Every structure is written in structure tokens, then in C-alpha cells.
């Protein structure tokens, strides 16, 4: 049964959240979104429905946060709470319904990034943890880790320095480079601490994207291996499985009339068993 970190949202049932909640964590510029863009088609190809979500993507607060960040007058407590609003809106409206429908939820950052950012800004640890006691415990958290020395070139060769990613609100150094190094170093320290506390699966992100992708696939494969829904197959004989074709009155009937039970079972078995382990067509260059 799925657990939260201590408190339940009003009216929340956790018993039937059968999907999988997979978190990709890591600091700015470490390649999280690249990996999610690879993982989603890989999982879908195997027949899983995937929801991907991430910070500030909520309908409620996403736009408000973006506007607030433009002005450089977003205070630290306000910032923490605005992000918490965004998180809970997505938790209630995206993550929980998707898990209830049996989706795999891939989330680009989770409460840990929000905690790390709040901690480096001096927020009280007990306070932040209390707020996020509403969050669901994920099935796995993959922490893409890069040292500060490895992080800097990535910024140089991509989008340049950003005000907030450089923690300019916190370390108004002489320039963004100094701020970035100070801020990201402090963030990494918090992440490393959280990694131990919450048992992250650490993936060294210094490898190329394909290498990181392979490590992630292996990690996710392990989670899906232990999926209890697999018993759906083993617990039933072929006759029970043929409900959609044989009985004349299909209860759920995605399968065309011509499909016989054995064929149906094979497809379903391959979906639930991940027989290919993603070794099929999916590659780094998969569209």
C-alpha cells in the first residue's frame, strides 16, 4: 500500500494507487529532461501509459510563479510556499489520478529539489518537512549526480547562466559565475544529504546521455519487475483471460473478434513482463 510522508490530504485514498511513481532528481543542468524524453517513449513502446510532470507545470500556480520570478522580488518564504502550492496542485490533479488509473508517473524533480532549495535559503527543516508530509512516497528516486566541476561546462555549452539557477537572490556575487558555483555547491551538499536520508538511487551523470539512459532503464526495469499486476497473468488460466473474446459479451473489448485468447494473453504478458527490457527499437535517436 502506498504511503505518504505522514499526513493525508482530505479525502485521499491511497489503497488503489496502483501505478508507479518514479522520480528523476538532480540539480540544474544535469540532464533530467533529456532522460525523461527518452524514458517516456521507451515505456510507451512497451505498452505503459506514462504521465510526465515537473516543477511549475501546474495549471493553478505555474504562471503565477513564472511572473513572480520575473520581478526578482520573490521572498524566500513566499517562494517556498508558491512552489508547494504548485506541487500540491499537480499531486492532486495529475499524479494521484494517474496513479489511480495505473499510469507510470515520471516526475522531473519532486519534493526533494524543493526541500534542497528551501534549505539552502535557510528555511526551517521541520517546517518544510511538515508541509511536504502530504507527499506520496515514490517507488524510486533516481538522483542524477554531477560534481560542480562537471556542471559548469554544461552551462557554458547550453543556455548560459540564469538568475535563479545561479542563486543570485541568495549569493549576489560579483557575477553569475561566482554565484552559480556557490549556490550549486550548497545545493549539491543538500542533495547528497537527502540522498542518504531518502535512499536515492544515485546515477553518475558524467556519462553520456545514452549511458545514463541505460542505467535508468535498468533501474526502472527492476521496479516494474516487482509489479504486483503481473500476477494478473499468472493467477488466471487462459479461459479467464479470454473474457474479451470468447464470452460474446465482452466486458472490456479492445481486442478485435479475430483475436483469440492465446494471442491476447501473449500481448498482455509481454507488456506486463517487459520481455524486451527495452532492447528493441528504442534508442537515443528514437523520435
Amino acid at each position, binding site marked *: 500500500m502506498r504511503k505518504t*510522508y*505522514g*499526513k*493525508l*490530504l*482530505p*479525502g485521499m485514498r491511497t489503497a488503489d494507487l496502483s501505478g508507479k511513481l518514479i522520480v528523476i532528481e538532480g540539480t540544474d543542468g544535469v540532464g533530467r529532461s533529456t532522460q525523461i524524453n527518452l524514458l517516456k517513449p521507451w515505456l510507451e513502446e512497451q505498452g505503459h501509459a506514462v504521465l510526465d510532470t515537473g516543477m511549475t507545470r501546474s*495549471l*493553478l*500556480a505555474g*504562471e*503565477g510563479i513564472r*511572473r*513572480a520570478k520575473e*520581478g526578482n*522580488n*520573490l*521572498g*524566500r*518564504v*513566499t517562494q*517556498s*510556499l*508558491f512552489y*508547494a*502550492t504548485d506541487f*500540491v*496542485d499537480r499531486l*492532486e*490533479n495529475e499524479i494521484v489520478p494517474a496513479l489511480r488509473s495505473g499510469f507510470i508517473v515520471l516526475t522531473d524533480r519532486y519534493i526533494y529539489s524543493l526541500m534542497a532549495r528551501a*534549505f539552502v*535559503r*535557510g*528555511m*526551517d*527543516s*521541520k*517546517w*518544510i*518537512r*511538515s*508541509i*511536504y*508530509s*502530504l507527499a506520496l512516497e515514490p517507488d524510486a528516486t533516481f538522483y542524477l549526480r554531477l560534481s560542480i566541476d562537471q556542471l559548469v561546462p554544461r552551462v557554458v555549452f547550453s543556455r548560459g547562466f540564469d538568475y535563479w539557477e545561479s542563486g543570485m537572490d541568495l549569493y549576489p556575487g560579483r557575477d553569475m559565475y561566482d554565484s552559480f558555483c556557490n549556490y550549486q555547491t550548497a545545493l549539491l551538499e543538500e542533495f547528497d*544529504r537527502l540522498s542518504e*536520508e531518502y535512499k536515492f538511487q544515485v546515477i553518475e551523470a558524467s556519462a553520456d546521455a545514452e549511458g545514463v539512459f541505460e542505467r535508468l532503464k535498468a533501474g526502472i526495469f527492476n521496479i516494474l519487475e516487482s509489479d504486483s499486476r503481473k500476477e494478473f497473468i499468472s493467477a488466471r488460466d487462459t479461459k479467464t483471460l479470454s473474457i474479451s473474446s470468447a464470452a460474446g459479451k465482452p466486458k472490456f473489448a479492445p481486442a478485435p473478434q479475430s483475436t483469440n485468447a492465446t494471442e491476447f494473453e501473449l500481448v498482455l504478458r509481454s507488456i506486463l513482463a517487459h520481455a524486451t527490457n527495452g532492447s528493441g527499437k528504442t534508442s537515443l535517436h528514437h523520435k
Partner: protein
Amino acid sequence: MEITSGNGFGPFEVFLPVRSTATKSQQHGDDGFPGRLFIVEGIDGSGKSTQLSLLHKWLESKGYGVVFSEWNSSPLVKDTTKFGKKKKMLTAATFSLIHATDFADRTEKSILPLLKAGAVVLCDRYIYTAFARDVARGMDREWVRELYGFAVKPTVAFYFRVPLETAIGRLLDGRNGFKYYEAGMDLELSDDPEESFRLFQGLILKEYEDMIPEFDLTVIDATLPIEVQQAQVRQIAKSHLDKAANVRVQP
């Protein structure tokens, strides 16, 4: 989740959970800042805003630097709240969080710095409004109190106590209909807005009553004539200002 590790310092030196075990003098408030913070609470129709505005005028006439801050008024946040209400997309949890965000912005930008600078800060509604409403909506009592742990403790929290029917009578005279969240329609207590409002305010009133001893609220009988209430409010405010050596007063 184990609440143990991490750094224990807060956003301000005043950071403490509201219900900490710290003694009164250690908590934020009275002696922490040169300024003074007076806030008013009560259900809709209790007359609290009228009383606060009368106090405001009186304090200004006495030469104090007075600043007023209203619930749900942060320029940074209120558009988001308005959007969420208009679309009826706020749940108990996001309703609670977005109002806390609004309050945080006002605390960081105006309430706290002005108290440090020696102003008299007046707030129409404060954290107790959130405690009452959010808990009525089903949020965990302890969680909501923790959420507002960054708040500055008021010098005096006036609670304008009024029977439900008196308040509703005052409101029905002055307006036509209630808004969705105002009437607590999201709680699905009743399909009729007026009936829903009545039930919702009843829940809120109960939370307020429980908070009187918990937070040492100063109760004003809001059925008394306006002038009598105001005289009480001014007398109490004055007793706290006379002791305050560093409040800014115009020469």
C-alpha cells in the same frame, strides 16, 4: 518521515512554530520588535473591519506610523488566487497553500520589516482566519498551524465574537448572494448558497471558539454598540503603545 536532520535555523530570527514550547517572551511578538502588531478576527459580518478602520484613524491622529495589511492582498499572489477561485479549481489543500503564500509575501515585504522599523501594523484577518477556514475545509489542524510557523505573533489579536444569526442578518441586508468559496460551496454542505454559508460559518465559528484559549485571543463582544467596542479596542491598544519605547511617532 523522520523530522530530524537538516539545518535548524529559520527564515527569520523569529522563526518558530506557532505552538512551540517556547515561553511567551521567547516567541516573536511583543518585545521582539520596536513596532506593534494589532490584528482583527471574526466571522463575516462581525464588524471587525469597521472597528479596525476606526482604530486606524485614531492611531494616525495620535501621530503613529500606521500600516494596514489586508488578508489575500499580495500583488504577487492574488492573481493566482483569483484565477483558482474563478475556475473553482482550489481544493482544501491548495486553497490553504495559496493563502499561506499570499500571507508569506505580505509578511516578508511589509509586516515584518515595518515592525522592525517601529511601525504600528494593522491586519484585517490573520493566521487565525486560515486556521478556522482550512480546518473547516478538512485540512489537518496541526498541519495548518505548522504551515504558518513563520508568522509574527500579534501584540493583540482581537476576536469579534458574534452569534451566527446576528452576523448573517447583517450580511443579508448589505448584499445579494454569496460567492462560491465564500459560501463554502466547495464543502458540498448544501446546494443552496445561503444555507451553505450558514453551515460553513458555523464550522468556522466553532474553530474560532476553540482558538480563544489556544492563542489567547482578546474577545470583544461584537453585539455591543460600535462606539463601546471601539472604546475597548482603543483602551487595549493604548496600553500596549504606552509601554512601547521605540514605536515611531511624528514629532
